[in-house]
């Protein structure tokens, strides 16, 4: 059912060597390829538009849900709406992500719109990897939208990674946080050649004692362009911190715009942002270990984006 290209894409985006354990849904070129529900986690296709509903029953813990998407045909534009209902007290790992293999001259695009309702005290770890490959001239485009609603005491840990291969990405993330909820976002991005990446994260710290920590690390190479916007909005007693850190190489162009907005004197919001070259003494140090300059740079970037 899975050919070598499919398997390679799945390995890159979800670390899968074959069909995963637990609940999963694999989508290829706009159609469902395989799906499995397990006890406590039900995956059903939507009836009004493309996409699936993923329902995790209250109290389900230690389970995982894999929902990778792959595109291997040129000229596909796949739009999908997925809704996650994470029951109170549940604790699950969700591995999403999209891989595009484009050998043709037409654009291949995937727009994944994910909405999460994370109920009282529930927790998710969400890992989303984006990856592109293929020798064609057609663009590889990924435009994800992620909306999260965190109820009281809920936790969401997001890991969003895109390393090479995606020509164009516009990523929107919107988070609404209830009282005592916690958000951790780790974004890792490497663009090269003429690639373009735009990321806009807005976090509404609505509930009392909610907290958010957003860390973005990126590397821009060649003539690629990156724009980061991260906004934290504090409505009451809450805590938020944004760190945007970029390494600029070649003739890249990087804009970093952390924004803090306090609607209350009890909101504690901070940010730090930096854009700079790779440090010369780090490269030299690794060369004194016997690495060539290219190997040293590759190693530094690998560590930085880990």
């Amino acid at each position: 059912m899975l050919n070598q290209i499919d398997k390679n894409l799945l390995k890159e985006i979800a670390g899968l060597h074959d069909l995963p354990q637990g609940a999963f849904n694999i989508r290829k070129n706009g159609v469902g390829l395989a799906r499995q529900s397990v006890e406590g986690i039900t995956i059903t296709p939507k009836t009004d538009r493309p996409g699936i509903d993923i329902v995790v029953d209250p109290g389900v813990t230690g389970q995982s849900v894999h929902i990778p998407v792959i595109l291997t045909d040129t000229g596909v534009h796949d739009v999908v709406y997925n809704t996650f209902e994470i029951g109170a007290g549940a604790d699950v790992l969700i591995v999403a992500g999209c891989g595009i293999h484009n050998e043709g001259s037409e654009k291949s695009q995937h727009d994944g719109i994910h909405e999460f309702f994370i109920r009282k005290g529930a927790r998710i770890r969400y890992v989303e990897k984006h990856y592109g490959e293929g020798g064609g001239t057609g663009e590889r485009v990924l435009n994800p939208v992620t909306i999260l609603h965190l109820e009281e005491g809920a936790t969401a840990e997001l890991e969003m990674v895109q390393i090479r291969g995606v020509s164009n990405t516009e990523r929107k993330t919107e988070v609404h946080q209830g009282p005592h909820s916690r958000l951790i976002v780790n974004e890792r991005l490497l663009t090269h050649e003429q690639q373009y990446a735009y990321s806009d994260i807005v976090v509404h710290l609505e509930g009392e004692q909610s907290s958010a920590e957003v860390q973005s690390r990126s590397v821009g190479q060649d003539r690629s362009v990156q724009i980061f916007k991260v906004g934290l909005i504090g409505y009451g007693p809450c805590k938020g911190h944004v760190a945007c850190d970029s390494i600029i190489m070649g003739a890249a162009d990087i804009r970093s715009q952390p924004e803090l907005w306090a609607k209350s004197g009890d909101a504690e919001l901070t940010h730090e942002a930096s854009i700079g070259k790779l440090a010369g003494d780090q490269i030299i140090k690794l060369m004194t270990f016997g690495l060539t300059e290219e190997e040293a740079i590759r190693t530094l970037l690998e560590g930085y984006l880990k």
Partner: protein
Amino acid sequence: MLALEHIDLTLQDGSDEVRILNGISLKFEPGKLYVITGPNGGGKTSIAKVISGIYQPARGRIMLDGKEITGWSITERAKQGIRYAFQNPPRFKGIDIGWYLRLAYPEITENHIRSVMAKIGLCPENYLNRVVDSTLSGGEMKRLEIASVLLGPTRVAVLDEPEAGVDLWSFEQLRDFIVHSHQRSEGRITIIISHHERFLEVADEIVVVAGGVVQERGTMEKIRPLIEEGINCRWRNICLGEEA
């Protein structure tokens, strides 16, 4: 044998050229332990950087076992076993100690890494997965730096102020490790840049560098009067342009 022959070093300071080293000639023999000492700004670190290939001299030659290596890159010298523990080692985001040490010597076993870490007082259980970033203390970073150089079959080990920031209790352990590692090696040249008496007293030869020039070289007996007189006082005169 490692030899520096008539090394001059000039560096760019803005639009000005500054002469940092002046006609440095030094011979280092296999199996011997050398200490380079002298006042701040005298040129010790610059000599280390010339040996490791970080600085290219304006004049002079560097010879390793009869072969000229002056034009060799940092990488080539490292591969031939010339290793340099920095005075101020840089920090790295996302690289942990285990990875860092394997970068220094990829063929080294996990067991060997653990035993070296234990010897320099970085208990592997607590430190192997620590990231080599600014969360490591100055003394921890310094010990790691020394471990990265002495871990493998290094032929020329240059240690730039290994004692800096290392506490009194760990210092003896660190010194013993450096000395034992030297004694157990097969003809390693160990060059320690230091002001510390406890290194000076184990040196086969001490080299005093000030004002970019080798001022004196010899055994502890020969150098001791200089130290007692106060190296700083004596060489300050040179800086002021007066005769000592």
